[in-house]
């Protein structure tokens, strides 16, 4: 049990939103503490979802593209340069009911005047019975981590968004055939990504299909695919299944405290990063289910740092009157 010195700003989360907030807050001499999360093989980890991607082609200023983990390392270095401090742990409890706001990492207590929440979103799983047991044995949520082990094999990717198609394209470097399994009859991915999938001879698409069973004891041997229109079931032999079916915001920590919409995303006041609790700000994917891009997350992180700085100034001005 330990209580740490009080701070002006704590940032929870370290994706593009949290690290941009850290750069701005640190440059404003607010000496933010970034509780960056702990290592994990899901997207819920220091650096956020970009840690599991390869080439990022649409972040402005990188005409040749940049590797996701490298971009995040550079953002972290930039925040550190101006005095942001990092704690490679996960926040486990919060209390925003009084002043100051308090955040715990296990038994350690941290307090701050303002808190910026940028805990992001994590990958959804299929929810099939033996799915967790087969992770690392044929079922994967990280194409960049595991694609290498499927050289010369036939595999499948579940999903229809940009990340599913990006994973499928990446996996064709290793696999002989990649089947994209999507429950609808068209993708929600962007045009450029769709064209990439349709033009890749190694990628085939199974529309209106859902994975309903994973077969295999020690490792994945086949999957059952159910046609969402006819209900017909078919067993398909594959050795690898990559899951990219979307995300869920990491807001469990804030239940009953911060306002959320019906899907669990934090609600901010229009045109700002303010939550319903004074002094608590939210940015990035944890409050955005519309754009969900690194650059929009970074932009909202900047907003949160500026909102926090102004709020702190206002508090100070009011207190000294």
């Amino acid at each position, binding site marked *: 049990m330990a209580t740490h010195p009080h701070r002006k700003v704590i940032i929870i989360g370290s994706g593009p939103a949290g690290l941009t907030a850290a750069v701005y807050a640190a440059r404003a001499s607010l000496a933010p503490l970034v509780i960056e999360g702990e290592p994990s093989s899901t997207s819920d980890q220091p650096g956020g979802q970009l*840690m*599991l991607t390869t080439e990022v082609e649409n972040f402005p200023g990188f005409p040749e593209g940049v590797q996701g983990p490298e971009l995040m390392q550079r953002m972290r270095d930039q925040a550190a340069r101006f005095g942001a401090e990092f704690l490679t742990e996960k926040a486990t409890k919060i209390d925003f009911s009084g002043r100051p706001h308090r955040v715990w990492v296990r038994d350690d207590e941290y307090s701050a005047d303002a808190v910026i929440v940028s805990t992001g979103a994590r990958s959804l799983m299929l929810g099939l019975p033996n799915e967790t047991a087969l992770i690392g*044995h044929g079922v*994967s949520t990280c194409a960049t981590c595991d694609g*290498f*082990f499927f050289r010369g094999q036939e595999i499948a990717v579940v999903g229809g968004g940009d990340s599913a198609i990006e994973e499928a394209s990446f996996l064709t470097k290793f696999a002989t055939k990649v089947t994209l399994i999507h429950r609808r009859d068209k993708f929600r991915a962007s045009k450029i990504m769709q064209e990439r999938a349709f033009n890749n001879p190694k990628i085939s698409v199974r529309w209106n299909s859902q994975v309903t069973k994973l077969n295999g004891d020690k490792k994945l041997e086949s999957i059952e695919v159910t046609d969402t229109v006819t209900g017909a079931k078919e067993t398909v032999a594959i050795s690898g299944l990559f899951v990219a079916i979307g995300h869920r915001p990491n807001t469990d920590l804030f239940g009953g405290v911060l306002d959320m919409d019906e899907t669990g995303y934090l609600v901010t006041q229009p045109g700002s990063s303010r939550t319903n609790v004074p002094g608590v700000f939210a940015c990035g994917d944890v409050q955005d289910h519309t754009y969900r891009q690194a650059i929009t997350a970074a932009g909202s992180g900047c907003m949160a740092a500026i909102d926090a700085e102004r709020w702190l100034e206002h508090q100070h001005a009011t207190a000294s009157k």
Partner: protein
Amino acid sequence: MAANVVTLTTANFDETIRSSNTPVLVDFWAEWCGPCKQIDPVIREIATEKAGALTVAKLNVDDHGDIAMRFNVMSIPTMIVFKNGAEVQRLVGARGKAALLADLAGHLA
């Protein structure tokens, strides 16, 4: 401090896991794996703190795919604990230091 971590190759793998007086934690990793890079400092800290009780080693699966294949590693990071040359525990996926130490507690008594 890096001296505490053994770099494994096809040439020294069997000898290292068989001849060690302590359990050996082998981290299967690669340069292109983000989560592997995140656990690297964690593994190195554990190597220093548990020196004498646990041998920590790393195997690059790009350079020594034969070993990864022999142990059916299909996802990285995978960490395997060997005692007297035999696999006694397998941990798939990255995790933080506290969680990793808790997972390894049985071998550190």
